[in-house]
């Protein structure tokens, strides 16, 4: 057994090194930093929870707003991704994988390109308004699309969709056809088959899609900045400004760790709920 464990350790080494040096160490540094202070534009080592109290006092509103918006985006994305993956697995025949590949290919479009694309589509003289005016449905451009949470929602659903499709499609690939037929044969309506046989087998895929989307959206500060307008105060924007203009890295770190902690809690709750709802019955 010895050579095998050594080999395994060797294979794990590069990823462990990358994870430790580029991820755990900076994270550790910022965790320590979140208990420090800033005096006269200088970092002062300390062991205070002042920063966390400030987060709670001054930033609960954007925090709650961020979580509601990110949760909504994650739910919408996961459901749309499920629909698309379901189509690819069960209705697209031999071309299922091709459809998934096409979806993933859209990732090449790039993040900023997508943001500007939606700006062009949703703007007051954008494609959507021009089309609606041309069709005679409206006579003045509608301005609610752009610079609103809706614009952020549309853009982020669009961007995260391919990432959310992959885990769900992967899980659906593992679902065999015969048990689904067997369930129908035993008296289950197709909807019932979906909830009793398909969902319990892919719940982990659903949870990972939801988590990935949710974490991405909760931490995003580019889309809300460029498309969100004045009323989309997402926490990412505030965090970014603490590290930038406001020169208050400890507060920024405390805000980041608050977001991480809340994200983990929310994902745990959603995950447990999904696992419980789609458990094997009876």
């Amino acid at each position, binding site marked *: 057994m010895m050579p095998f464990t050594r080999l395994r350790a060797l294979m794990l080494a590069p990823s462990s090194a990358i994870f430790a040096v580029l991820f755990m160490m900076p994270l550790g540094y910022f965790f320590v930093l979140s208990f420090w202070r800033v005096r006269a534009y200088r970092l002062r080592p300390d062991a205070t929870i002042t920063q966390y109290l400030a987060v709670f006092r001054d930033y609960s509103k954007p925090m709650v707003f961020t979580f509601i918006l990110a949760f909504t985006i994650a739910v919408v994305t996961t459901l749309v991704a499920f629909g698309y993956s379901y189509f690819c697995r069960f209705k697209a025949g031999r071309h299922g994988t091709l459809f998934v590949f096409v979806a993933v290919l859209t990732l090449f479009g790039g993040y900023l390109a997508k943001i500007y694309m939606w700006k062009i589509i949703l703007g007051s003289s954008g494609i959507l308004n021009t089309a609606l005016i041309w069709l005679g449905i409206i006579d003045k451009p509608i301005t609610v699309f752009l610079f609103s949470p809706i614009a952020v929602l549309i853009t982020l659903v669009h961007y995260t969709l391919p990432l959310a499709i992959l885990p769900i499609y992967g899980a659906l690939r593992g679902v065999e056809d015969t048990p689904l*037929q*067997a369930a*129908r*044969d*035993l008296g*289950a309506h197709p909807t019932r088959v979906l909830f009793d046989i398909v969902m319990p087998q892919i719940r982990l895929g659903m949870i990972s899609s939801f988590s990935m989307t949710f974490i991405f959206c909760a931490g995003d500060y580019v889309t809300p900045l460029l498309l969100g307008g004045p009323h989309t105060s997402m926490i990412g924007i505030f965090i970014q400004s603490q590290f930038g203009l406001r020169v208050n890295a400890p507060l920024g770190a405390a805000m980041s760790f608050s977001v991480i902690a809340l994200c983990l809690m929310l994902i745990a709750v959603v995950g447990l709920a999904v696992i419980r709802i789609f458990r*094997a019955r009876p």
Partner: protein
Amino acid sequence: MLKRADTVVLQQLVKLEGLTKSYAKAVAVHPLDLSIQRGEFLAILGPSGCGKTTLLKMISGFVHPTGGAIWINGQDVTTVSPERRSTNMVFQGYGLFPHMSVAQNIAYGLHIRKTPRAEIEQRVREAMDLVQLGEFADRSVGQLSGGQAQRVALARALILRPEVLLLDEPLAALDLKLRKAMQEELRRIHLATGGTFVFVTHDQEEAMALATRICVMDHGRVVQDDVPEEIYAHPKSRFVSTFIGDANLMEGQRKRNIICLENELEIPHKGPDGNVVCMIRPERMEIAPLDGGKLPSGVTAQLTARLDHSVFLGSYVKYVVRLNDGRRLRIDSRDLSIRQVLTDGAQVRIGWRLEDQIVLADGS
């Protein structure tokens, strides 16, 4: 027609009328009429691609027929979806629910029907006892062996007390020993439940071992439908004769009620003139050394041949002989002593009784 079942009152349970299925490029099942009696154990036997599974899937409701009708217990179910039919199926590959325990799998059908919990528990226990899976209730399905998974699939279908139990190649995935054991099990369960079983197989031995009646299918048609003994003894076509059991075939021509085989043997046989095939089962042929040996009396059709090789198989010897025209024939003989005086390459006399030969029209 049903020799074994003539003591019970026959009652038609399933009736197929002109049932047909065609796909864009090919016809899977040609218009077909079939009736299945209550309590029957019917085998649908045929080579792969003969349409037997399509037929079974039409009965279960998973394949929509292109034409014709399916009646079950006096009701036209042609357009009824699978979940609302009184049939249940044991799928090829079993199709167990991987995220459920053995007991949950078996209980699923009753759970769907909102059966009271106490009744579910009792019936699950009964079903598990029936298939002898008593102590496996809480096992996960992934931990089961092939034979055990097969039993779970059976119990899961039987617990709903279906009018017809359909089995799609039920034993194909099992090894030989387990297959024999499961054949015994299926027979016992059929007797114990008194149900109507229809199973699809490509294995003629399995069909013979289990079925009270066999439907032989080929190229989307039923080519013979009878009790196993009749199909074996009186195959109606060349295909059936070679597909079910081993057969020695000899081609010839019939003229004025005399068949002239290609090896110049002449046999009287009534029938229209034309090309024919003579079929004799290996165990119906006799063999003896050419010099000094004598075939039993009554063996009137005789030929000389050369022994190619012989194989000792315990209770009988398999001789393979070659005729003058090069054709190979197989003879199964229980007379083990002949083998001791015959060496490979020896000249032998072979023959059969005229009543043991089946004459088939050529091209059938």
